[in-house]
């Protein structure tokens, strides 16, 4: 992401981040509402039903963005872990704390919507095929990370342990991505690929891209908000601790 440490320190400094976040947040929020509104309206009311799935196909407009976000958030978590382990950057640790629950929600929604689609289409809520299982593992990795990063009295120890877990768990990301190509699965292969033309009607592809963009901006806005709040909270704590220290100093004197 940020190649040189100099650049890293300039932009990943908490004060810079707060200024950046103050500028970006209104745009992210407005973009999310706009694209999500348009995408959801188009997907739910105007896009055609599939010739064999019928109206059930509309679950895709939530399911696919959630799958994408569950993976992207985890990638963000892994990047934060590298920044934290190698460069010991405090902002990366705070970001890891804040990204975890958001990614876990995306993974959970991905699993739930997939299950709701699978029952009428496949004829089962759940199967242990490679795609479904690897996404369930991703969900558990998120839960483990959330628990571990808060498990120690000394926050730095929890952050280090959680960073190692997140980094080790990153092997699950290529497994999720390529599971439908490496092994035969019940889950269908990707309809949208980088190399080939999409195997999806354009009338369904456009609303899907809109909801994906909308959810992505929305999740970015949520993470920026959470991270700003976390920075303010840690600053408040420091100030409180310092004033307490000052008071004891004056008492001692």
């Amino acid at each position, binding site marked *: 992401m940020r190649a040189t440490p100099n650049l890293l320190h300039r932009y990943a400094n908490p004060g810079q981040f707060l200024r950046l976040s103050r500028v970006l947040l209104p745009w992210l929020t407005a973009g999310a509402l706009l694209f999500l509104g348009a995408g959801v309206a188009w997907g739910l009311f105007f896009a055609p039903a599939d*010739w064999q*799935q019928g109206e059930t196909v509309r679950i*895709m407009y939530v399911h696919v963005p959630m799958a994408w976000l569950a993976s992207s958030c985890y990638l963000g978590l892994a990047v934060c872990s590298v920044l934290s382990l190698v*460069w010991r950057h405090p902002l990366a640790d705070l970001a890891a704390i804040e990204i975890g629950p958001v990614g876990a929600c995306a993974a959970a929604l991905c699993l739930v919507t997939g299950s709701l689609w699978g029952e*009428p289409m*496949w*004829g089962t809520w759940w199967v242990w095929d490679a795609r479904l299982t690897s996404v369930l593992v991703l969900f558990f990795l998120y839960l483990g990370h959330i628990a571990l990063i808060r498990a120690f009295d000394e926050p730095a120890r929890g952050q280090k342990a959680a960073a190692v877990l997140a980094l080790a768990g990153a*092997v699950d990301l290529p497994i999720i991505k390529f599971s439908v190509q490496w092994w035969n699965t019940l889950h269908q292969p990707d*309809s949208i690929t980088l190399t080939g033309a999409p195997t999806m009607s354009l*009338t369904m592809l456009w609303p899907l891209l809109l909801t994906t963009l909308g959810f992505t901006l929305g999740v970015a806005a949520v993470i920026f908000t959470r991270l700003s709040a976390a920075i303010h909270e840690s600053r408040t704590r420091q100030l409180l601790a310092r004033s307490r220290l000052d008071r004891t100093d004056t008492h001692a004197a």
Partner: protein
Amino acid sequence: MKRKTRRLWMVIACVACIGSAAGLTLRAFSSNIVFFMAPSQLKAHPPAADRTVRLGGMVVAGSLHRETHNGEPVNAFQITDGQAAIEVHFTGILPDLFREGQSVVALGSLQRDGDFTASEVLAKHDETYMPKEVADELKRTGKWDPRFGKAPDASSWDTMTAKKPASDTQSLKTGG
């Protein structure tokens, strides 16, 4: 700075080790990770009798027979992968997406006579998403018969739907 570089290399080395360990493990277990076996695989390496396996493939056009015995639907159909076909017997309700030409996965065991008795049948959906009007048009013009396999390449019918999003955006604009 030097310590940071060392930490970076250590992280890279650890990730590479974990990655290759995971890769080798998945490779070793890859026969267990596959969700189903194709008819030709099952015929080439028949599993031990009464062992439960999953058989996957396309339902052969014209092979489906449905009957009702004592109020229970009894289905017989063939599953093929293009190289071999296996006759499947299944008592129960088939999923909505089940049809001739659809990919399905059947859980059950191979009998001595070479037929497959399934206790559960799942329909597999492929990566094609097509509006009903387009499917009807392709069927009407004879460009595609769903009973004989996958839909033609999307680039051949995308233009048929290209008119649709234009009208959709318009209705969106006028509606909102």
